[in-house]
């Protein structure tokens, strides 16, 4: 107790100190901006690790026949690519944005629980490193798909308990991050920042945080049951002992479906933040955006078995999960219509963040269309576990979550660094990404409909042409992302040399508070609360 008080006093003594000098700053930091940077850099590195795995997959699939990898290693790659991208890249990147932006958007000096913030980051690093270490273990990394279905996952070699412990660490890290977000939003808003004045990014993160707290323990429970089935002779998922392998799927997807919304809701939030600024109009239908996000989050808990239509559900189950899943189209449609209406009669300019955001609306909607198609349970008996679903979820993740994360990077980098990024290279990065991502994923619709199952290392000759096209797209897309790394490093080092204003983007401070502080944002912002609160209803 004394220690806490002493440190508290110490903090007051050096009220406006900057960051600590040296390397230890990054280990011990409790500053939301430092931790945000750590998360973002970590996520970017993992994006390339997961991307390399994707390119190994696409290299093997470039031509029929087995050329490069053993089928088991191929299965490890599909498994690890997904786990690294979901838990190592997309989720941490959004946590990084939350750390940087939520306090600045609600006029708070920092996150509510700074030490837990630090701990949650380093647990994430530990979890991902543990996961990556399984690649070098006897028997290889998990090869049962990221869903870790039993009984197959029980055939994993030495890596099995390590993978599960890694999931536990990642889960604890996510829960801590989520608690922090909720505590910050509920307790640290500036006077006058009512809930219905908060930027949409804050709203979507608030809802996402509740999703995380609800689902991560479920996943932890499911994998713990796998652990006891393997090592302690329980039979939760073993029919021979009275269990049921399908029970695992129900538990997993009760986590898994909200989990995909954990990756998409903050995406919606950033898009709703960027589009109004570049349309020079307030966001259309602010409150319906909030309610739609809430509705999508609620629905995400009651649709899980649409991942399991062919598993042998009773007919009532098929019908219920089909109807419930179809309903998601309504709030999602509302969002797409609202973004379109925000652009309508605006005064638009097309800087890189806006380009990525528009591409997001279009391509995410295409992913939404295939989602609607698959919600129709009987036809899903054809689509299920083919390349059609691979195309679907990559459309909702790559040109959606990843595009928007990069849009966020371009949008806020000037605020973070005080420098302007190179617009020409930004646009080049956009066009290369937007074209190649379609060369990469659009043909996968054809492959799936033509009958190519997912997760196979080799395929029949009639699938050869589109696989080759898809692989070419993958390589263009993958290497284009190096441009993003270049832009980020270049901007940190000074960018175009042009000094940016506090507002950076025209009239941005009318939309949100982060544009009222200096650029680059000082180490501590809003040590005194802001006086005026901008809203999207101006």
């Amino acid at each position, binding site marked *: 107790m004394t220690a806490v008080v002493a440190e508290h006093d110490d903090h007051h003594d050096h009220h406006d100190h900057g960051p600590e000098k040296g390397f230890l700053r990054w280990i011990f930091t409790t500053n939301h901006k430092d931790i945000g940077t750590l998360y973002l850099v970590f996520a970017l590195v993992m994006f390339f690790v997961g991307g390399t795995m994707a390119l190994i997959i696409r290299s093997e699939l470039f031509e029929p026949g087995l050329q490069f990898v053993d089928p088991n290693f191929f299965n490890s790659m599909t498994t690890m690519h997904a786990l690294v991208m979901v838990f190592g890249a997309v989720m941490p990147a959004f946590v990084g944005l939350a750390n940087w932006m939520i306090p600045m958007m609600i006029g708070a000096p920092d996150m509510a629980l700074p030490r837990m913030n630090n701990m949650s980051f380093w647990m994430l690093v530990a979890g991902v490193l543990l996961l990556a270490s399984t690649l070098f273990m006897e028997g290889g990394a998990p090869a049962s798909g990221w869903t870790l279905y039993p009984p197959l996952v029980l055939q994993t070699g030495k890596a099995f308990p390590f993978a599960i412990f890694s999931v536990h660490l990642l889960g604890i890290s996510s829960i801590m991050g989520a608690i922090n977000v909720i505590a910050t939003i509920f307790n640290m808003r500036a006077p006058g920042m009512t809930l219905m004045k908060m930027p949409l990014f804050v709203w979507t993160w608030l809802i996402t945080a509740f999703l995380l707290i609800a689902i991560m323990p479920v996943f932890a429970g499911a994998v713990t049951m796998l652990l006891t089935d393997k090592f302690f002779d329980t039979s939760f998922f073993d029919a021979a002992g009275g269990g049921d392998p399908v029970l695992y799927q129900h538990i997993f997807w009760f986590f898994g479906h909200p989990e995909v919304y954990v990756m998409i809701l903050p995406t919606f939030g950033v898009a709703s933040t960027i589009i109004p600024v570049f349309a020079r109009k307030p966001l259309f239908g602010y409150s319906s955006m909030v309610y739609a996000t809430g509705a999508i989050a609620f629905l995400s808990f009651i649709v899980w078995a649409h991942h399991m239509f062919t598993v042998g559900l009773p007919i009532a189950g098929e019908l219920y999960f089909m109807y419930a899943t179809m309903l998601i189209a309504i709030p999602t449609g509302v969002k797409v219509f609202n973004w379109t209406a925000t652009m309508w009669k605006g005064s638009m300019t097309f800087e890189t963040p806006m380009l990525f955001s528009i591409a997001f609306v279009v391509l995410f909607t295409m992913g939404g269309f295939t989602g609607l198609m698959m919600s129709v349970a009987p036809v899903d008996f054809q689509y299920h576990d083919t390349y059609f679903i691979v195309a679907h979820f990559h459309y909702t993740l790559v040109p959606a979550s990843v595009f928007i994360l990069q849009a966020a990077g371009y949008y806020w980098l000037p605020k973070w660094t005080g420098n302007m990024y190179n617009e020409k290279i930004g646009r080049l990065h956009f066009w290369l990404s937007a074209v190649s991502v*379609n060369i990469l994923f659009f043909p996968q619709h054809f492959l799936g409909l033509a009958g190519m199952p997912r997760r196979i290392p080799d395929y029949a000759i009639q699938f050869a042409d589109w696989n080759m096209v898809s692989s070419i797209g993958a390589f263009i897309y993958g290497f284009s992302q190096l441009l993003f790394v270049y832009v980020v490093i270049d901007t940190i080092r000074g960018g175009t040399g042009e000094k940016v204003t506090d507002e950076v983007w025209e009239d941005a401070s009318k939309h949100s508070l982060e544009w009222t502080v200096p650029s680059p944002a000082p180490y501590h912002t809003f040590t005194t609360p802001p006086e005026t609160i901008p809203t999207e209803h101006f």
Partner: protein
Amino acid sequence: MKKTKQLLACLVLMTLGLGTAHADYTLNLVQGVTQLSHELYDLHMLVLWICVFIGIAVFGTMFYSIYHHRKSKGHEAAKFHENTTVEIIWTIIPTLILVAMAIPATKAVIDLDKTQESEMSIKVTGKQWYWDYEYLDNGIHFESHLDEASEKTHRVSSMDPRSVPNYLLNVDKPLVVPTKKKIRFLFTAGDVIHSWWVPDLGWKKDANPGFVNEAWTYVDKPGTYRGQCTELCGRDHGFMPIVVIAMEQEQYDAWVKTTLEKQNQPVDLSDQSRGSLMTKGESVYLRNCVACHQIDGNGISGWFPALRGSAKVTGNMDQLIGFIQAGTSKMPAFRKLPDNELAELITYIRNAPELGNNVGDEIQPNKITPKWDDDE
């Protein structure tokens, strides 16, 4: 924008296509050969067209706006930020569209579920990595493995997949069914979850260990229909295809007769030449052993032991027979192999140059005596 991208993709494809003669790819879902598959195809097209029309409307509006409402054209931003009437309309219209979709979809769900009143039943068991078919009405029972040509080609990188007919979509023993008969399928699995999918029949169904799933079909048209396992089931998940041959009732009856005759024949235990033992032994090896011990007998380090130079393989013959029949905690017991196949297999693995073994002996089928005890 989307169109340009598709055009680009097509251009890339065409340039590539010049080198390859295989242009028999399809872009859309197969229509299939059953009433059910047609119903699902129509439903697929209905939803697809709904999506296309919504897409044209939404993206059309957006691109109109992007083109006209831009600052560089001097367009002033309007101030509106909500409109309750519009918002209610674009909530209600999608709801109505969904209801319109749900009606035929509900009917299709019910149709998929109609497994009652079938005229015959086939039990399908998924195993790592082949299918096991059992005709419950006449006792026909066989395993269906990937055909030898595909098996060898995908395991030897110097062989060209394009030279193999129906590469990875062919089996040694196809499932034969009569046309115009309601057939009920029962699905289960022996080890992990598999999924049985023939696109032309219109559905896939998971095969879960310890549980039985049902599905049905009624094939209108005779023909050969191919599919694959669609639930990740381990390293050779991509190599357990399904072939269904539908034939008219008369031909089917003839097939049943000859198959049953063959099945009920006593195993031929007469002596064979060494060459015959070796050739047939290779087939037995490719069906039963290659998935783990690999085509070169090297196994996979950390997973499956090598046969190449293995003392167990090249050592005492009787112990080897007992070992194969009894299995281990990791290797299944191969008691299912009749004595002739076991003799062929043993001669092959002890002497195959591909596996690097050369003991220089052989064993004839009638020399095999059971080395395991049923009571154990």
